[in-house]
């Protein structure tokens, strides 16, 4: 990325606003946070996908047993 990352800091007591370039450490922390978030989101997404897949599979098995769609849906809600 070529743009300079900055932060605007507003002191609510004095009203003074400063625009401060992010330090190398802050940028590194930010990137680490983003990576940690992405890893956690991948885990969450996988869990959601697995839950949806299990629900669909269960629904299909209930329908195969002869339940109506409304009955099966009521059970897997």
């Amino acid at each position: 990325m070529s743009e300079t990352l900055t932060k605007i800091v507003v002191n609510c007591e004095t009203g003074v606003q400063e625009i401060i370039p992010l330090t190398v450490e802050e940028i590194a922390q930010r990137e680490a946070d983003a990576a940690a978030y992405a890893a956690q989101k991948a885990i969450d997404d996988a869990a959601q996908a697995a839950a949806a897949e299990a629900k669909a599979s269960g629904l299909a098995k209930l329908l195969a047993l002869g339940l109506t769609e409304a009955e099966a849906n009521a059970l897997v809600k």
Partner: protein
Amino acid sequence: MATTFTLISSVTVGGGGSAVIEFTSIPQTYTDLQILLSVRSSTAAGNSNCFIYLNGTFGTSYAQQRLSGDGSNVVSDSQTSYPWVDMINAIPNATYTANTFGSAQIYIPNYASSNNKSLSVDFVGENNSTTSYIYITAGLFQNSSGITSITIDGTDNFVQYSTAYLYGISNA
């Protein structure tokens, strides 16, 4: 019922953009806080996110429950021991309709108390497309200190004319 609604401070992002907006030295004299955001990200591709931290605290102090929609799917999820309260994929960026901004309202009741702090967040993106995100988030900050700083962190830079307004609400 709130009896006063006072602008504490506001920010309008300038021409260079800014990745972070931070309110510091927040007076402890109000009952509740409210932040109104209008932001757009400089991100050129993919999605843009927005995170909120309180008192400069990262780590595992946060929990949240979210309800989100993107125009075709509705998803609810929750996170515990989480590093922040967030609104994911919600910020309009270069892939969105030009000159559109996302709008958020963040309400923090009893922010100066020694109890854990709750956050109520709603966020809507704007896009002339079938895909645009909305979020309703219930956040928890597990910390006994009064809130003295609020940091709003986006993916890449918030673009020029993005704004953040911090209000103090007093019930007496």
